[in-house]
């Protein structure tokens, strides 16, 4: 087991390296000048712009910028005032020594700090989505398998396909229109409420000073984003669970269980459910990954201050260190997600050899 974990982790290293090269390359190819965005004030003189570009190092060739990002430049002198002579030591330590550089937009802040603020919000949201989505998906899947071919099964098939077909932002907007405008207006007609939205339509915390209150005081902020985001998870997992359950009930030990006279509840839940859920651990990683990937959209609809929104803003303002940092963190999360689900599978199923 230990060897398996070590081997899988080592395999992640070339992947991670490849990701950084690809993302850095694409990022630098992108038209749009970070300096022009930072110094759009016409009072900036051209020589000041040039000096800023030199300090940020954005005019160097691709490989120089990438290497500086990777291994830093604190071991060499650089030219920061453009007089053609090197004058001061570089100040980057490089990502290999844990330095993500300095944000262009928020001068002096470490991208890692920016991300740390936001990552908690993303993980909080997606954990709730996974918890809610998995439990409902599994229950629906088991019921669909038990009542296969009946009305419930057919209904959930349509529901599952529909759940992945609807654009997330369209669904989010429908939720906002109905929960935020139509439903309160409707209730007001019956003398309930004052026509104001019942649930918060966006954000993570009440807009008060002094940061976010503990999570149990702001659970209602989670309801809409979690419902909207979980629909796809429920849809996917109910289908996986149904298929896995149907595979399981045709196996020999299920026949044995039935022939020794066990009650059908015991067959379905003690023998069937437990075995059927095992192969599904493989899907746990991809599920988490697609949530992280889709977080840009869900965070934009509900103005949830997560890593997706940070990445989006950084892309718009060409803030290279922040783009790279959030890209790397999101990719690391992705890789870790895959890794954990494989390991969980190997751990849970003694038949898996590694």
């Amino acid at each position, binding site marked *: 087991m230990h060897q398996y974990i070590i081997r899988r982790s080592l395999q992640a290293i070339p992947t991670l390296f490849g990701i950084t090269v690809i993302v850095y390359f694409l990022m630098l190819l992108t038209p749009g000048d970070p300096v022009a965005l930072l110094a759009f004030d016409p009072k900036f003189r051209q020589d000041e712009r040039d000096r800023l570009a030199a300090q940020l190092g954005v005019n160097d060739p691709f490989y120089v910028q990438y290497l500086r990002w990777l291994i830093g430049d604190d071991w060499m002198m650089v030219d920061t005032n453009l007089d053609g002579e090197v004058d001061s030591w570089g100040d980057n330590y490089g990502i290999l020594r844990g330095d993500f550089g300095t944000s262009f937009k928020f001068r002096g802040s470490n991208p890692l700090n920016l991300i740390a603020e936001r990552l908690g919000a993303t993980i909080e949201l997606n954990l709730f989505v996974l918890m809610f989505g998995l439990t409902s998906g599994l229950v629906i899947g088991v019921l669909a398998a038990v009542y296969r071919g009946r009305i419930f099964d057919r209904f959930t098939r349509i529901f599952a396909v529909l759940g992945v077909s609807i654009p997330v932002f369209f669904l989010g907007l429908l939720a906002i229109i109905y929960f935020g405008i139509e439903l309160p207006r409707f209730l007001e007609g019956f003398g309930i409420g004052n026509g104001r939205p019942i649930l918060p339509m966006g954000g993570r915390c009440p807009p008060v000073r002094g940061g976010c209150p503990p999570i149990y005081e702001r659970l209602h902020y989670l309801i809409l984003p979690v419902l909207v985001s979980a629909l796809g998870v429920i849809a996917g997992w109910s289908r996986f669970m149904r298929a896995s359950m149907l595979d399981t009930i045709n196996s020999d030990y299920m026949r044995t269980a039935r022939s020794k006279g066990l009650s059908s509840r015991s067959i379905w839940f003690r023998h069937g459910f437990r075995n059927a859920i095992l192969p599904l651990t493989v899907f746990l990683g991809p599920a988490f*990954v697609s949530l992280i990937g889709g977080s840009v959209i869900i965070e934009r609809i509900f103005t949830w201050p997560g890593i997706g929104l940070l990445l989006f803003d950084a892309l718009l303002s060409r803030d290279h260190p922040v783009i790279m940092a959030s890209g790397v963190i999101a990719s690391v999360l992705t890789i870790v997600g895959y890794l954990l689900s494989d390991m969980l599978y190997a751990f849970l199923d003694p038949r898996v050899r590694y």
Partner: protein
Amino acid sequence: MKAKRFKTKVAGLDHPDLVDFKPSLNMWQRALRHIRQDRATVGAILVIVVLAAICMAAPLIDEVFQVDPITQDLRNNYAPMFSKGHPFGTDELGRDHLSRLLYGGQVSLSIAFAAAFLAIGIGIAVGAFAGFYGGLLDDFIMWFVTTWNSIPSLFLLILITSLLSPSPLTLVLILGITGWTGTTRLVRGQTYSIKEREYVIAARAVGASNLRIMFLHIVPNILSLIIVDLSLTLGALILAESALSFLGFGVRAPTATWGNMLNGGLDYARRAQHLVFIPGFLITMTVFCFFLLGDGLRDAFDPKIAD
């Protein structure tokens, strides 16, 4: 039924046991028969065909209703559904909504089809080479695929989209070159297992070249899987196009697509709900039909499911 499918007279063929002989159905015939009984899949195909036909008939429909997708009429903007001269109302600039939906549908569907064929074409070629030759080439390709898949897909799409100014053509290229990895995995795995089969060895024995074996013997045998993949990819690409529009990286105005119409409608959702609901509904329905079709095709091609 008297089967007359033999050119030469074979002795004993008129034996009573053989007169009613019917050759067993091949994979395609069996799949077709399965689909005919599957009402959901037939419905999905019908909806897609009808919708595509209506979109392609846009110029004709414009003639009938005397509308066009470009003319603005600011005094008559946000016209509701079924208003005079505009059966689907007008948008924020007073342009006819029906006509824009039809032309937008043309663009959205063409982008999805072209990008899906591009992605799957790349996927088949790369996957077949990786699976067939194995070794270092395979290692390198699979490393690249894993790496590519580990970058969150929307992030990758946004990065590449901001490289090229998004027109329908560049969007096809972008969606195509970001979307081929799934097919590559599929084709590579299948090629890997099929290349040891007897018929491949037989083809090699009669002197078929590697390319011939790959693309005339192996790929046709996984065509059923590829068709299912194509149907699912089409749905996913329509969703991707609308997601990119929502983030502001889609096809730019004035070209209409369902994605950017839905996204544009979001700003006017309180004034004119038809600007949101109709494009949203059309996207959802089209994607729904493609996914349903993929599901149905998978069942139809599955040899384990007896009919």
